[in-house]
């Protein structure tokens, strides 16, 4: 019996380890071909650890710890580390690639067709092998003259040596060469992108499948000095913080930049920039008020309804409960859009029903109130659901005992039901607080942060930290992931501190009631 059990377990383990090893073997060639050495190292290390832990008879505790630890590393620690790393760079729109890539993109983008130069009818040809043989161009100019071009230059080809298409003049046969068809040309795309026939002051490049033009590069990079020169104006561009800046003091920059380390610049921007620092405290205050009021109102309404429906002799309890859960069942973003249109001053439902003329989302306090009202509607069913469950878990003997001792219903609720309820619900209230703290959709879809104070579009009066951050990072000149990472690290620390304090309080609560 005993040996059989071990054998069974080992068999499952073998399958598991086998799967892991198979996955690694599958991944290794791909990672090698992509030169992803770090990923390769991680894959090998993880596989080795798993093999050791699950095949060694001694590491029993580790077998239970390792899955959770690996997942924690992959889904919590790695993103945080990556965010921290990004916060020290200028990564974002215009700074997405390496300097080498940026240089080659800039040079490629700078190729212009020589003004007034003719277009050639092109036949791409090769020798020996269609897929690997050397590439040559057979070029027919508008006068019908044929030349053969390779990486050394042009050679005239007498008409007698080739057969031309009578309409276009394109070379269709050249003895000793294989003329590639469209699909074969396309298959050589990688070589064609670097292939050019040098001519006086420029080069001939292919465009499409059967055309070529004389191009000139207007930007030239010097690797030694790292200077990019505009060949038409002679202006030199020097690298500075991930961008080529004109050395003539005009402040002009080249369009493509690269990703580079900028040290503490992003953090400094958060701390010193008045448009970020100024409204930060106001936004933080509203965020805290929004999150805590949302929790309080939803909890109060949810608990109140739960208590009201908790009466054992109430008829139709289930129907009421199901109806109350409806807002929870609708997709939140649809509800938010419907509420947004209900708040419309001239065409909205609310003003028509109430016969009022209130600019709900246009005034500071009405907008804040509207958000809280909508959030209450969205959030109370959850609290109602939780409270209903918890109320049923409060032992009825305790309540009866209190009543026998002469306590009023209010007193029973305050001294027996509520404390027992709080033990269960306190962690959920904290979770709900953290959720609302980052409730981007609610703000984005209802007010988008508005109304904004005059002359300031970075921080609206209903912006919470997350919507404010989003606007700072993505509302300027494209996406600025570096700055976004720095701001989110600040928020991460802030939310972390609040949660830490909150959980300490709950533990204190639990100890009090457990005693």
């Amino acid at each position, binding site marked *: 019996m005993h040996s059989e059990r071990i054998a069974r377990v080992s068999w499952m383990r073998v399958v598991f380890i086998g799967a892991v090893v198979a996955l690694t073997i599958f991944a290794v060639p791909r990672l090698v071909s992509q030169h992803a050495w770090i990923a390769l190292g991680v894959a090998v290390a993880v596989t080795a650890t798993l093999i050791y832990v699950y095949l060694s008879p001694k590491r029993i505790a580790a077998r239970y710890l390792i899955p959770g630890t690996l997942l924690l590393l992959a889904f919590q620690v790695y993103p945080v580390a990556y965010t921290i790393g990004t916060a020290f760079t200028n990564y974002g729109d215009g700074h997405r690639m390496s300097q080498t890539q940026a240089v080659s993109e800039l040079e490629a983008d700078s190729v212009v*067709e020589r003004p007034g130069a003719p277009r050639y009818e092109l036949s791409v040809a090769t020798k020996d092998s269609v897929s690997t043989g050397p590439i040559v161009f057979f070029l027919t100019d508008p006068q019908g003259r044929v030349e053969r071009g390779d990486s050394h230059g042009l050679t005239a080809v007498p008409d007698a040596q080739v057969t031309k298409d009578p309409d276009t003049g394109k070379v269709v046969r050249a003895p000793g060469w294989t003329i590639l068809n469209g*699909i074969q040309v*396309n298959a050589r795309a990688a070589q064609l*992108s670097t292939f050019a026939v040098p001519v006086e002051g420029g080069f001939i490049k292919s465009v499409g*499948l059967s055309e070529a033009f004389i191009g000139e590069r207007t930007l030239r990079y010097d690797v030694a000095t790292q200077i990019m020169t505009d060949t038409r104006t002679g202006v030199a561009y020097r690298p500075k913080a991930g961008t080529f800046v004109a050395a003539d003091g005009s402040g002009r920059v080249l369009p493509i930049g690269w990703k580079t380390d900028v040290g503490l610049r992003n953090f400094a921007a958060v701390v010193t920039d008045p448009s970020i620092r100024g409204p930060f405290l106001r936004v933080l205050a509203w965020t805290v008020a929004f999150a805590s009021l949302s929790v309080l109102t939803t909890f109060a309404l949810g608990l109140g309804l739960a208590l009201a429906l908790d009466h054992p002799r109430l008829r139709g309890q289930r129907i009421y409960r199901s109806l109350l859960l409806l807002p929870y069942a609708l997709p939140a973003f649809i509800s938010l859009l419907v509420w947004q249109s209900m708040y419309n001053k001239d065409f909205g439902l609310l003003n028509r029903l109430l016969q009022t003329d209130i600019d709900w989302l246009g005034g500071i306090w009405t907008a804040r109130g509207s958000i809280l009202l909508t959030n209450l509607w969205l959030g109370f069913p959850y609290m109602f659901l939780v409270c209903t469950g918890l109320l049923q878990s409060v032992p009825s003997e305790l309540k009866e005992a209190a009543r026998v001792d002469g306590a009023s219903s209010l007193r029973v609720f305050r001294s027996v039901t509520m404390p027992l309820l709080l033990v269960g619900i306190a962690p959920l209230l904290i979770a709900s607080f953290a959720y609302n703290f980052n409730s981007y959709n609610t703000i984005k879809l209802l007010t988008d942060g*508005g109304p904004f104070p005059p002359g300031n579009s970075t921080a609206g009066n209903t912006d919470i930290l997350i919507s404010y951050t989003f606007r700072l990072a993505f*509302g300027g000149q*494209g996406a600025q992931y570096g700055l976004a990472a720095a701001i989110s690290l600040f928020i991460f620390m802030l939310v972390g501190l609040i949660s830490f304090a909150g959980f300490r309080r709950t533990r204190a609560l639990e100890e009090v009631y457990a005693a």
Partner: protein
Amino acid sequence: MRVRSSLIFATTAVVTAALALSGCSSNSATRAAPSSSSASGTPAPAASASGVPTRDPHTDLVIWTDAQRAPVLQRFARSFAAANGISVSVQAVSTDLQSAYVTATNAGKGPDIVVGATDWIGNLVQNGTIAPLPLTQAQKLAFEPTALKAVTYNGQTYGVPYATENLALFTNTAEATAAPSTFEAMVQNGQAAVKAKKASDPLALQVGQQGDPYTIQPLVGSAGGYIFGTKADGTYDPAKLGVDGPGFVAFAKLLSRYGEKSENVFKRSIDANNAVSLFASGKVPYLVSGPWALPQIKQAGIKYAVSPVPGFAGMGPAEPFLGVQAFYVSSKAKNAPIAQEFTLNYLTRKDVEEALYKAEPRPPALTSAYDDVAKTDPDIAAFHTAGEHGVVLPQIPAMSAVWGPLGIAEAAIVGGADPASAMAGAAAQIKKAVG
């Protein structure tokens, strides 16, 4: 019998699998000869519209477009594929195509061609994701000059334009006179219709709580305002911000006069969600919108006319933004020769641009195609006329720093804020973001 049928099934399965595998391997980078599957000329079906987009690896040409345009392009891609013996796949990216394209292209998983508006060009270029397309001089001259200008950036043409779009004025001809000569006349007509209980508001021009600089632009231009000044070569200069310039401030004062605190023609309660439906349901006699509103208005069955947005009395004509839809070839295209062939020599054909118009009614960017279309479709001709004084929607990346602050200033002025200081505030913020 049973054994035999299962044997046949197993054999078929193995053969199919082997074929499928060989089909896959024939798509690797070192493919020598055209494989039978790629020569079939039938495009692969479009990818599902949801989820993270990844490039379809099994075809010779991959095109990414938004979800509305995908079925249309699918047909053209198919005929191009059949003519050239290749396979094409058109993939619909339903959410935020531009940033999905930039991210995928930088990761080496992007398409060969992407379709989008020309105000993307600045961002696509600064991220090194699109390559210049050397149109011949003759091809360039065949396009509407503004369409060509819209795809030109830093002196290079980056796209092949196929349709133009701009704002115009829709009139419900049962409620008010069409084609009013000035903005003031239009407001008078509209207010008369409101007085006569034919309508509830004189004009639907979307503002919303956050403002809408695109929709208000025709009137900005009429008052002499501009967002970015131009360099000597006619391209936009991010250093010349005109948002707090005299023309823009003059416009802002008019915006305030027709705002909620006085004439109440511009309202924040009219936004992108309700503007067209207010007009289509007959509640307003005038609407400022683009060709995308046509289907809804036609469906509503009201009598309408399209005319240029009127300028202010004694000022210049309205200057709507001219947007152009264009095809771009990726700088990381795996099939660059075919992609260039498709954009430069197929999409620039008159019959193709006309067919694209039939699938989606916008003025074609190719002059000869437009001339043909305008003869039969008065709406398209009217939109084209409405765009005659238009200005090219800026392609420079700095434009993305403009929309937010400018819109908020616009909404604030409509709501009663001081025009000059609101514009100064917006200008200060844009200048800081542009750097």
